[in-house]
């Protein structure tokens, strides 16, 4: 529990080459009774990334975050945060981490400013001399400057959320862990939080942000990890995930039969039998022909060239990936607002 700092220094290689990851877990598992809230999660959050930790409510996101921050112990698995092993190096790691965990929480009888003073005074590395200035700067940064003297019980949920984020920003941090930061915020507030996270990321802070809203994660994250029922289903950059999805060829033509033959010759498997009454007809006698683009290295333009060479009248053609949303519904087997 109470590691001496110098002892920690010699027992870990943190002073050596920087690890590639700000947060790294291997086989992280948390068991509550018979239920596995977190089940063998291998997180890899690169330095400098904005990592969206996405999953339906109850999928184990907050349980994972609690373990990352040393609030709960892992049933099994290893955790490394900013090069230190958690929870052993907690005293050395956590001053560099700002966190918002499972919603903001404050002393209702203290003002917003007094609440931040209180939490800041608990940080032995936070210099008392600059406390006032740092608290006010953090309040201003989240747009609470005008409400700083109000008692926290008079704050709206959105204001509490902002105060919680301000608390995470009291000191310069290398890592921010934000659990559902835009809960309770109106669209304007959500946009502000998004902007704030981007500007923090631009300063070099790694941001680990959990959300159950795909659209939110998609708009601000560079990396993404998808949780469902305690398991990390996939993780990677947003682009990786977009590319991961199967692409489809969508063709609009009055000559569906010839088109299918051409596609089949190219190695694709056009869908649906050739019965014209079963294929959806569109205006002008065109018919939609679709096929999964399952052939490696087959470019869209070569498909079009082959179609045209076979005298297929191509009236519309596109190759599109499945939307991220489709991907996630495929992965999690449910919509994103469903409680898991």
């Amino acid at each position, binding site marked *: 529990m109470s590691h001496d700092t110098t002892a920690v220094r010699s027992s870990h290689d943190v002073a050596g080459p920087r690890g590639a*990851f700000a947060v790294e877990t291997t086989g992280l598992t948390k068991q509550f009774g018979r239920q596995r809230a977190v089940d063998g999660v291998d997180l890899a959050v*690169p*330095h400098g990334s904005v990592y969206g930790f996405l999953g339906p409510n109850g999928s184990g996101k907050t349980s994972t975050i*609690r373990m990352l921050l*040393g609030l709960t112990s892992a049933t099994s698995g290893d955790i490394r945060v900013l090069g230190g092993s958690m929870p052993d190096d907690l005293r050395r790691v956590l001053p560099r981490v700002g966190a918002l965990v499972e919603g903001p929480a404050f002393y209702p009888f203290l003002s917003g400013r007094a609440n931040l003073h209180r939490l800041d005074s608990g940080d032995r590395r936070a210099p008392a001399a600059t406390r006032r200035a740092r608290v006010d700067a953090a309040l201003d940064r989240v747009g609470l400057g005008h409400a700083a003297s109000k008692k926290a019980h008079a704050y709206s949920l959105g204001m509490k959320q902002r105060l919680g984020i301000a608390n995470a920003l009291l000191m310069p941090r290398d890592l921010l862990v934000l659990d559902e930061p835009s809960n309770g915020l109106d669209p304007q507030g959500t946009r502000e939080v998004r902007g704030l996270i981007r500007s923090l990321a631009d300063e070099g802070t790694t941001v680990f942000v959990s959300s159950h809203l795909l659209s939110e994660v998609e708009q601000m994250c560079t990396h993404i990890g998808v949780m469902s029922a305690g398991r990390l289903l996939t993780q990677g950059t947003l682009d990786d995930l977009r590319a991961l999805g199967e692409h489809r060829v969508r063709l609009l033509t009055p000559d569906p039969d010839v088109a299918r033959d051409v596609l089949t010759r190219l190695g694709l498997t056009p869908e649906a039998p050739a019965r014209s009454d079963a294929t959806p007809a569109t205006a002008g006698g065109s018919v939609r022909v679709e096929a999964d683009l399952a052939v490696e290295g087959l470019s869209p333009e070569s498909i079009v060239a082959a179609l045209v060479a076979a005298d297929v009248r191509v009236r519309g053609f596109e190759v599109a990936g499945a939307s991220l949303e489709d991907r996630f519904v495929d992965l999690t087997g449910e919509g994103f607002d469903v409680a898991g």
Partner: protein
Amino acid sequence: MSPAEPVGARPDADRTADEPVDGPRGGLGLALLGSELAVLFRRVRTIALLGALALIPVLLAVAVRVTTADGGSGRGPAFLGDITQNGLFVSLTALTVAIPLFLPLTVGVVAGDTIAGEASLGTLRYLLVTPVGRVRLLLVKYAAAAAFCLAATLVVVVFGAIAGAALFPIGPVALLSGQTIGLGDYALRLLLMALYVTLSLLGLSAIGLFASTLTSVPVGAMAATIVLSTVAQIVDALPQLDALDPWLFTHHWLGFADLMRDPISWDSFAANALLQAGYVAVFGALALGRFTTKDVLS
């Protein structure tokens, strides 16, 4: 962004993990204790508890004054009859009245709230993430609870002295051993008695601290602490359970009268200190063991 790429944009990006974020390590971190005391003593609930304690000597003095004016009979606990002769006895009487119930009640509220209160507000997780070490948080919480014990006792003594001086004649005080002492000597002895009572409440505070680590419902921890203090006093009073008496944290609670002898009999003071230290050690260790391994889920 390539995953292996270091942060770059941050000027101190290749700082090693060991270096402090900013400034010195901050020594003992006494700022937290200051903050804890400020939060505790500025809180309306704490002020209300202390106000209620202040009412005990005041009501006592007023009641005695009113009834003796009507020619009262002088019945009541020890010292009560003496009040009319010397107002300085009000503090002593009020302490005697407050010890069995009112002081444990207020101490139970404060000690039971220490950890469970933070847990129920959700601020516990933010303190721990700050990071306030769990051991340090327990120590600070216990120190604040002890400070409340002292404040509570002093409130009874000081308001007793004020009410006594206002409503009754004051003069040299007769000790239990027969001698008479002056005001200065008496004030010193009152202070010693306040310390004695504070000491008496430290064991209970440790029990409350432990109870507080067991739950995130502060009322539960408060009730458990208060009930325990009552049970201990009942057991102490039952002749069939005499064998247990020396081990009860309430056993020496009324022993402060020994400080009203000359020379002062320190036996009960020493026995009480030893007993309370034992309770603090045992329940402090239990609280540490529980809290340092606890999953904070609130």
